[in-house]
């Protein structure tokens, strides 16, 4: 804190409380919906306070009963989601930090071309190039495998771009000092760049983990073995009801449960958000 100004602190808290109220409202509603009977949300103004059916609903979902709308146990789906999310998050961070390092700290022919080649991967979501991408995965024999589920999604321009931004802000003096100390590219990367990118790696990990966790279309497409069903694909299956009303209470309860692992990741990663890691004069 730079100085003490009470009104600024109060204003900050008010802004945050208002922000949380607006941003988290849909999450709250999902929770409320999971505590009512299924018709409460479509027959009259939606309730804003939790109902009394919470216990039964969550118990039913965890038991996997739920007039069994899913043919796969919830634990297996959670496991699949976890594997896919971790593969995507780690995979993206590793390949991106390496490529950003190459682009910022080396000069070589086709450097700019390489950056733009990576960059345009931002520009076509899987849904619009689904037919050719599916064919590639099928030709490589990756259908029904964790590799097929995750590898096509780890090409990421976002992460490369972020690391480029982070590296560019790191003072050149550090590199010069490291060179005087006789540090090569590996030591510099390990001892200087990695620690200085910690906060951004943590933020990126949160975002990428959730991104991987929330995939459903791609998993549904490239697997035919129910043993690979992810939790979000399972939720989608529960909600994908034609000609009748979905059982919103069970769906929302599953959705609330499915949110827990990502939230744990958010909480865990905040340990890395320590102030003033970069105390060097810029």
């Amino acid at each position: 804190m730079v100085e003490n100004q009470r009104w600024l602190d109060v204003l900050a808290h008010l802004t945050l409380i208002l922000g949380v109220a607006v941003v988290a409202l849909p999450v709250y509603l999902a929770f409320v919906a999971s505590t009512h009977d299924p018709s409460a949300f479509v027959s009259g103004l939606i309730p804003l306070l939790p109902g009394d059916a919470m216990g039964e609903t969550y118990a039913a979902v965890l038991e996997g009963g739920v007039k069994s709308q899913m043919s796969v146990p919830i634990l297996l789906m959670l496991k699949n989601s976890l594997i896919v999310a971790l593969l995507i998050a780690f995979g993206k961070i590793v390949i991106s930090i390496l490529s950003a390092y190459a682009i910022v700290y080396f000069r070589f022919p086709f450097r700019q071309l390489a950056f733009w080649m990576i960059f345009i991967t931002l520009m076509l979501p899987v849904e619009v190039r689904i037919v050719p991408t599916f064919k590639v995965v099928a030709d490589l024999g990756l259908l029904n495998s964790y590799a097929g589920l995750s590898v096509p999604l780890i090409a990421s321009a976002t992460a490369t771009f972020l690391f480029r931004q982070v590296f560019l802000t790191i003072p050149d003096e550090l590199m010069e000092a490291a060179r005087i100390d006789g540090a090569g590219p590996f030591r510099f990367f390990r001892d200087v760049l990695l620690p200085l990118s910690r906060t951004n790696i943590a933020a990126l990990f949160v975002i990428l983990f959730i991104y991987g966790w929330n995939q459903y279309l791609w998993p549904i497409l490239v697997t035919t073995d129910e043993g690979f069903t992810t939790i979000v694909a399972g939720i989608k299956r529960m909600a994908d009801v034609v000609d009748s009303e979905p059982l919103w209470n069970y769906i929302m309860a599953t959705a609330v449960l499915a949110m827990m692992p990502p939230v744990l990741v958010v909480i865990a990663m905040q340990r890395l958000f320590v102030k003033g890691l970069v105390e060097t004069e810029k």
Partner: protein
Amino acid sequence: MIKTLSTSVLALCATLGAAQAQTDINWWHAMGGELGAKLDEIVAAYNASQSDYRVIPTYKGSYAETMTAAIAAFRAGEQPDIVQVFEVGTGTMMAAKGAVYPVYQLMADMGEDFDPEGFLPAVVGYYTDTDGNMLSMPFNSSTPILYYNKDVFAKAGLDAETAPKTWGDVEAFSRKIMETGAAPCGFTTGWISWVQLENFSAWHNQPIGTLENGFGGLDTELTVNGPAQVKHWENLAKWQKDGTFQYGGPGGGADSAPKFYAQECAMYMNSSASRAGVIANAKDFEVGYGMLPYYDDVEGAPQNSIIGGATLWVLQGKPEEDYKGVADFFTYLSSAEVQADWHQFSGYLPITEAAYELGKEQGYYEANPGSDVAIKQITLNAPTANSKGLRFGNYVQIRAIIDEEFQRLLSGEVDAQGALDSLVKRGNDMIRDFQGANG
């Protein structure tokens, strides 16, 4: 939890062990929720009933996602044996001659006992060619009917046991309901395209397109801008202005159901398969059922309504044993017992006479009022060229155009004639496009 896990692992090992001598039949479907669970149950019963084949059902997302998945897989040589396709994809599937294996041909080639006469013509007619050959196996078909709120009817001083028959009734009943304050709105509807245009046309024996509503070839054109349709859309716009009718949104009209459940609108038109959902969500009132309303001054009305839903298509490029299994499975699927069970559980129409008769014998329709309105409505008269169904290419896009033009009508941008003329013109462009790509 651990116990259930280990039993399912054991069950899995058991099926894997037994699988070696079996031929696997892959079936990709779009049935989520309870219907998906019921589908799994039907398949499990089939798998237990014999040991030559094992059907593996796989959920592949929404209808559109399932269809795209099957197409992507076909292009990569990884297609399933059977795929469930919604009715508006029929044109695409049928035009893909090298990709689909017509059901009548499959049954004949595999020497399977197959009697096309046993099926309900109003259901299978939608999926036959002009020679009467069945191309795909109907699985979940429904037709729109009218639901009404008996309590509101009584409160308004109407006879709670009498559903409106004509659009004149709908208007008069709505007036009374609104004037007495029994409910703020007369009626709402799901699926503007399916209910208030396609079924409206069939129900009034008006052509939807040339060449028998497109059954006769790709060279077809839309004709829904006739006087009957124009008059109806004019009325809908008028009724929306004075509050008699409330619009439930594009596509399936997701906003319409809550209007009925919350007792805002007293009448509601939507799929007969929604019956169970309507009963479950109509918490504080009793539901009545009726056939779709008609204009009594239109000649030929009421004719018969048409269906919607999805059918099972068989894809080419699989080994012969697979097709033997598919044929065997289809015979099982269309047996009276399985059909009656699926029909009674889901509210979808039975596809054979035998299943309907079985339901009657079991006393199902007496015990469940309203459950036979749909069957009576589709079989009211023998289907004509106008009421057999429809078959146009790029129909998914045309449905979207119908919604757009209806929204333009309601917001006052165009009148009914203008909206329908523009719909026909834009729709025909889509059909020409499809003809170009498939002709």
